């Protein structure tokens, strides 16, 4: 017997990850993507047509009409709160693209709205679902490297286009865009919160004239004394063989583990393209994330990645900006 199909709505395709999540949902036999909301009518109706879904430029009306089980929010960072509150008001579970919001105030309001509604709000941190990252966590939590002491981490990337470069929509550049993935994984592995952040933040350093931060080196101290650095820079040029990386070199008192989450790739030098690219062959972590979220919706919770984890990762990024302004370490919580 096939289970009852869950109905899903995509809330905006502003963030390009929406395409991947929508594809992962469309491949499942037990989910039907029935609606697309987007304030960009051209982008939204094109996506809706591809999915065979209804399009609307008004999210509350779309939710009221379709009564979906859940929504995937991929609007601009500054619009997450508006869209999440619409979902909570309609009694719809939500998966929200990272960062959870561009301010702590928005993140807290979102958490409160979903608590009141008794619905799941989960944050899309796909890196947790990478099998190498999950194995790293097992090994560290299992004591293989002894007591974890410190980690040197990167989440490099290429410079993204569009609203990512408009601070009023994104909340900032490379630091807010790229701190949260690794910050979340470290909190998840250590089961500890950050207590202090120092950061060097570079504006227009790698992309002259950008007018936004495009380079960041964070130094983060956690409860219990563990410390880590995170390089969040948009430092991979267009000619680099891939979009970027997630690396964590973690040292304990009995050993060390070097993680390169996207090392699972084949090298491909192609004269037609005039460059060398790395073709990934590892698992599709977006698909594993979607599977886990759908499972949670079916069970009625709890959220696989609770909203508080999204808020705590955002707090580390916002502390980095504050530290750069003060040229001094900043204590957490903010």
């Amino acid at each position: 017997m096939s289970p009852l199909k869950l109905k899903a709505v995509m809330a905006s395709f502003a963030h390009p990850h929406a395409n991947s999540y929508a594809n992962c949902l469309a491949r499942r036999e037990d989910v039907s993507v029935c609606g697309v909301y987007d304030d960009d009518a051209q982008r939204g109706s094109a996506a809706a047509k591809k999915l065979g879904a209804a399009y609307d430029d008004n999210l509350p009306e779309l939710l009221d009409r379709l009564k979906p089980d859940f929504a995937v929010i991929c609007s601009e960072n500054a619009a997450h709160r508006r869209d999440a509150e619409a979902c909570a008001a309609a009694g719809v579970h939500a998966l929200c693209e990272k960062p959870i919001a561009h301010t702590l105030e928005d993140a807290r309001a979102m958490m409160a709205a979903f608590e009141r509604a008794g619905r799941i709000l989960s944050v899309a941190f796909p890196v947790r679902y990478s099998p190498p990252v999950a194995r790293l966590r097992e090994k560290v939590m299992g004591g293989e490297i002894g007591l974890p002491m410190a980690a040197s981490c990167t989440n490099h990337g290429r410079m993204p286009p569009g609203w990512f470069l408009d601070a009023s929509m994104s909340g900032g550049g490379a630091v807010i865009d790229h701190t949260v993935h690794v910050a979340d994984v470290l909190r998840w592995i250590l089961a500890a919160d950050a207590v202090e952040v120092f950061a060097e933040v570079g504006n227009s350093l790698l992309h002259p004239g950008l007018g936004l931060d495009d380079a960041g080196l964070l130094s983060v101290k956690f409860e219990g004394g563990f410390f880590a650095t995170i390089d969040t820079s948009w430092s991979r040029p267009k000619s680099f063989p891939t979009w970027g990386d997630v690396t964590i070199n973690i040292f304990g008192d009995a050993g060390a583990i070097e993680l390169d989450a996207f090392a699972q790739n084949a090298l491909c030098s192609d004269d037609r393209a005039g460059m060398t690219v790395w073709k990934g062959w590892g698992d599709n972590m977006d698909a594993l994330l979607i599977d886990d979220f759908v499972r949670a919706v079916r069970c009625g919770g709890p959220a696989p990645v609770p909203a508080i984890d999204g808020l705590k990762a955002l707090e580390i990024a916002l502390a980095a900006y504050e530290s750069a302004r003060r040229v001094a370490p900043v204590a957490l919580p903010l």
Partner: protein
Amino acid sequence: MATIGFAGYGFMARVRRDAYAAAGGSRPSFAADTDPARRAEAEAAGMKAFASIEDMLERARPDVVDVCLPTHLHAPAVRASLEAGAHVFCEKPLCANPAEARALAALAASRGRLLLVGHILRFFPDYRTLLNSYRNGDVGAPGVARARRLTNRPPESRAWYCDDALCGGVILDLMIHDIDFALLALGAPERAFARRACDPASGLDFALATLRFKSGAMAHFEACWAANIGFRYEFELAGDRGLLHIDSASKPALKTSLYDGCSRLENPTSKSPMALQLEHFLDCVENGAEPLINADEAALAVAAADAIARSAREGKVVAIET
């Protein structure tokens, strides 16, 4: 759901038993082994055990026989199973003798049964990515392939591994992985040349071989069994406008280095290649999926491996019959 019986319940059967569980579909419910201790182990794992394959075929009538025996015992087990009307999953190599391999493929065809051989590289995500990219035309026309495979000498408890007559040595047992993959990518082979170094004292078994293909393309193979050499593979395919390369060791996803001297490389994925292979084989039996490997291809891999082994013995170029 297909019923499955193991022919042989040694090391490989135990690996495959766990992979069936990970694949999440049908699982073996029978096992045949001449060793009472192994039969007891199979029964402890919830299977009904038999003292001979014939006995299992007659009394349990499994839909599928999964042959996990030493190589020199493959052919009789495969033949008996096909003749009893079962589909067959067989560990690689299909068998050691090219004529016998072709005869088994013909028998499967005439009986209308599947004979699916575990050339597992076809189920490795990195090899599949490389193959898809090549088939997509990313490197143009193929020129030179290079394959490399190093692994620790199999443990001495499996004595048949150390007897060339029983397992075929590093060429028929290890290099054949890469031979099959090169044939899959480059098509019909024409001739082989090889040299081999064996040192019974240290356990080293090392071979270097070349294959020339009818298309003009060529391939180089390096295969090594030695104590504590570690596990490593590489595959490179150079074409007339590009290059593809995979390497198990240059960039592992995880490298653990303990301060007491132990180190380990890992590339975790959500499903093992073995689980993916068994999932596919069961899909072929239960749902009629098109096999990703057919018995003729498995027989051709045996023929190419045999030509390479013969070249190493005789110091001559050996033509390959296709």
